[in-house]
């Protein structure tokens, strides 16, 4: 049970900072490409003869730069984050392919022959708990504190809920937004490296399949697409619920595609239920107040008569 978590918790590692981005009212769809970029750059620099851990640092630096590019474009143009990150989705994926092409890497095999100490990063265990899970929990705690206990988290929430009020309150919106995108890119790059270690091969398309499952986690975790609402706890729970749900469906003998149909439908139903349940709660509340008001009116009307 614990071991099977390694097959999905890496999605949660990106979902946490992505939740932060969506809480500020933005969105980042380029993280899959950032993961690929950082993975292949790590692989290529390792192939060039660098120590693997230095190569990892180079890969993370590439992810950091990618995040800065995202943030700089979004803040400077004021265009919708969705289109900007759509552009960088292509840009970074192309750069990843380019890097692997320049490194002479075949796109099917990737770069293998990574040292065992690096492979142990994601496939190993600490005190009987898979490393991947440990890393995920550490990331979750960091982001829970960042969002729930720091002034940065409150600023992010205000910017998402009401950007104008945040601007009048004197918050440096650009800085808060930049941090959120850079954190997302860094975590995506880290996941790219983790996956490289897990599969013990660096590939330029390693992040291609990350987009949809990660967004699913964030949305099912209760983060609003319109900014201002959401919590890390919700994303944490969603990661395990969705992860174990999919594992369970696979155990029941469902194929990967049947699982995709179920997950896709679940995403839509949960998102719809969110609105409708809020709507009904509001209606019940309104009716209760109305009834109370009518009763009070009836009482106050009698003495007059």
């Amino acid at each position, binding site marked *: 049970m614990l071991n099977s978590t390694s097959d999905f918790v890496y999605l949660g590692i990106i979902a946490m900072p992505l939740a932060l981005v969506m809480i500020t009212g933005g*969105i980042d769809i380029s993280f899959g490409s950032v993961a690929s970029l950082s993975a292949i750059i790590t692989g290529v620099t390792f192939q060039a003869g660098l120590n693997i851990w230095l190569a990892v640092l180079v890969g993370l630096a590439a992810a950091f730069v990618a995040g800065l590019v995202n943030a700089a*474009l979004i803040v*400077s*143009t*004021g*265009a*919708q984050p*969705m*289109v*900007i990150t*759509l*552009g*960088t*989705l*292509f*840009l*970074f*994926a*192309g*750069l990843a*392919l*380019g890097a*692997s*092409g320049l490194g002479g890497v075949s796109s099917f095999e990737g770069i293998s022959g990574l040292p065992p100490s690096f492979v142990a990063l994601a496939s190993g265990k600490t005190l009987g708990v898979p490393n991947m899970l440990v890393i995920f929990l550490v990331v979750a705690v960091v982001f829970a504190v960042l969002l729930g206990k720091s002034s940065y988290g409150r600023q992010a929430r205000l910017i998402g809920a009401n950007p104008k009020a945040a601007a009048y309150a004197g918050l440096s919106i650009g800085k808060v937004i930049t941090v959120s995108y850079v954190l997302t890119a860094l975590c995506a790059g880290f996941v790219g490296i983790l996956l490289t270690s897990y599969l013990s091969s660096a590939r330029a398309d390693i992040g*291609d399949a990350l987009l*949809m499952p990660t*967004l*699913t986690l964030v*949305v099912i975790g209760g983060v609003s*697409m*319109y900014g201002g609402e959401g919590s890390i706890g919700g994303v944490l729970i969603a990661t395990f619920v969705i992860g174990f749900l999919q594992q369970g469906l696979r155990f029941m003998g469902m*194929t990967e*595609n*049947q*699982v*995709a*149909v179920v*997950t*896709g*439908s679940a*995403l*839509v139903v949960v*998102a*719809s239920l969110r*609105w*409708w349940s809020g*709507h009904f709660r509001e209606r019940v509340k309104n009716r209760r107040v109305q009834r109370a008001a009518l009763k009070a009116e009836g009482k106050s009307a009698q003495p007059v008569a």
Partner: protein
Amino acid sequence: MNLRSLLRHREAVTVSGVVILVLLVMLVQPAFAAPSNLLRIANSTVILALLAAGSAVVIMTRNIDVSVGSMLALTGIVGGLMLRDGVPAVLTVVVVLALGAALGVVNGLGVTYGHVPSIVMTLGTLGAYRGLSFLITEGHSIENVPAGYKAIGRADILGVPLLVWLVIVALIGIGLFLGRTRLGRHVYATGDNRDGAHLIGVRTNGVIILAFAVSGVCAAAAALVFLAQVGSISNQAGQGIEMRAIAAAVIGGVALSGGVGTVFGAAAGAVFITAAVSSLSFLGIPGFWADTVIGAILLVALFADARVRKALDHRRVLDRYRAVHEAAPDAAENRKVAQ
């Protein structure tokens, strides 16, 4: 050139971009502008142009459709199975287009009555439709599309492939519908200001469902083109093409904030992307840089767009100041008279 007309005619900018690109590459490699190569580009653009047009209609209503690639695969597989099993081509075309419309309506219903944000809804169906197409074929690809149907892909009129003509006619049809009919204008109104449109009597929910249906039909039409051109279809068909379709629409001047853009612009954006990618091989650049080029084009377009918009806003504010200051002396005099 006037900045305002530049913004108003973004598709013209995109078209001139295509022309400039072709001329520039021609300077290096004259063979690029040979009619045969331009026809090849046109032939390979039609699928992307159809998908971009469909995405554009949805984007105009201030929604987004990322499920077009999966709709292409699902409708294409149903169409391929029908053709393979001897169903007449005309009936197949009708059924496939109707299926596309139905898939689009599901998206539209979720967005309007289900109150699911469009990106979440279509991400869900992106996975679900792709999964369904796998379930139908159990992972095998559909081969043996009859030669009679494949002949459509090779037929040409006046030297230009029949499919290109058909797609041009279809795009003109959608363009006229959006620009010249009441319902078409409602699409723009809904995207520009949904509440406002609702207040003046536009059935905004119906319009949004219609836009998603148009996108579904376009995806189904793209699947029919795919079957005619390729002659077989696998479950992976159209994987990841939704992002290219949205990129084409945005390059062609369709704003993600809704209410702005034309299908011609989106189609021109698709031509631009295809031409840019195919120019790589003529310039001796390895094909794996294609995505980088698309991303760079998109970002440059967005950056230029933002700059022009900012300059325009600036000028509007200046004009307003000037108007106030010119009117001020009169106002001061009027006050004196009143006293």
